[in-house]
Structures are given as C-alpha cells and as structure tokens.
C-alpha cells in the first residue's frame, strides 16, 4: 500500500521529493511528506488539497484510515 501511495504522489508531483511512511505497519495509517515548488505561494489548506487530490481514490475507498500530511515549498 505504501508503494501505491508513493506512485500516486509521484504521478501528481513528478520530479518532486515524496516520501510515504506506514506509521503503524498496518497498511492504513500513513504519513506523507511532499516538497514541491508547486506549493510556493499557496496556503497550507491549498497545499494539502493538492495532496488530497492526488490520493483521492485511496481516500474514498477507505484504504487510508488515517493520513498525516507535511508539505513544504521547494525553496
């Protein structure tokens, strides 16, 4: 599951720094970190929305039980 989220994020943020951690080892509690120049000038809400958009399918189908997000601009 970590690989699937990782792939979805890399597709949405090509070339950017992405990492996914399975926080509990159970395959449903995740910490994702994304560093992207696309975040620059955006509010945190807007930044997290981009991450949610990338992970819309696993969020909607219940694969992701809990998601923690950390976003950073690239500069």
């Amino acid at each position: 599951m970590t690989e699937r989220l990782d792939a979805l994020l890399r597709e949405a943020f090509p070339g950017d720094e992405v990492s996914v951690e399975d926080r509990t080892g159970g395959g449903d509690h995740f910490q994702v970190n994304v560093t992207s120049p696309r975040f620059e000038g955006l509010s945190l809400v807007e930044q997290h929305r981009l991450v949610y958009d990338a992970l819309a399918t696993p969020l909607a189908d219940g694969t992701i039980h809990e998601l923690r997000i950390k976003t950073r601009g690239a500069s």
Partner: protein
Amino acid sequence: MSDEIRDQVKGIIESEDVALFMKGTPQFVMCGNSHRALEALRRAGAPVTAVDILPDPRIREELSALSGWPTIPQVFVRGELVGGADIVEELAESGELERKLEEKLGPEYRGAGEERVAALG
C-alpha cells in the same frame, strides 16, 4: 432529511467563532487526529464549538461536500476552513493560529467563551 443536516452543518460553520468537527466529543475523543486538533486549539485558547460527526454518517458526508476536505477533523474560524489536524498543529506551533484567531475574533478572544458541544441531527 439530508438537506436538513446540510443546513445544520452550514449553520455551525457560518455562525460559530471556532467550529471543530471531530470524532467523539472533547470529553471523550475517539480519534488521535481529533485529539491533536483539539489540543492545538486549547493551547491557543480558542473558544471551541465541537461537533461529533460519528452519530450520523450524513454529517460527515455533508461536511466534506461543503468544505471539499476529505478527512476529519476539520477546523473553521468564522466560516473559513483553517485545516485538519496537521495544519492546525503546525499553525499552533508557529504562533500563526493565535494570530489568525486574534485577527478574526479580536484580541479578547481568549475570554470569549468556553468549550461547548453542538449536537446535530
């Protein structure tokens, strides 16, 4: 019936100074992320109105439809989505949450009220 719940959710978002949609209540929190958001708001002295989304699945459906935010908790200050647990925690740590509360609610917001719970449905 769903329209009624949507109107209630909308009413809370628009009329409460600080609305926290969470799993459980401040007295009995049912989720780690809801706990993190509540604690961050408490540290900032926010007058929180908490809404438990668990009693009826339609509350969460209507809330996410209105906000476009897929996860719980969700924090609103005077109608504006401030974020979920990660953002609220980050803003609390940088002091930005208190600045936002002051800007939206006035410098006296800390005395504005205690935590309360609003029940929907």
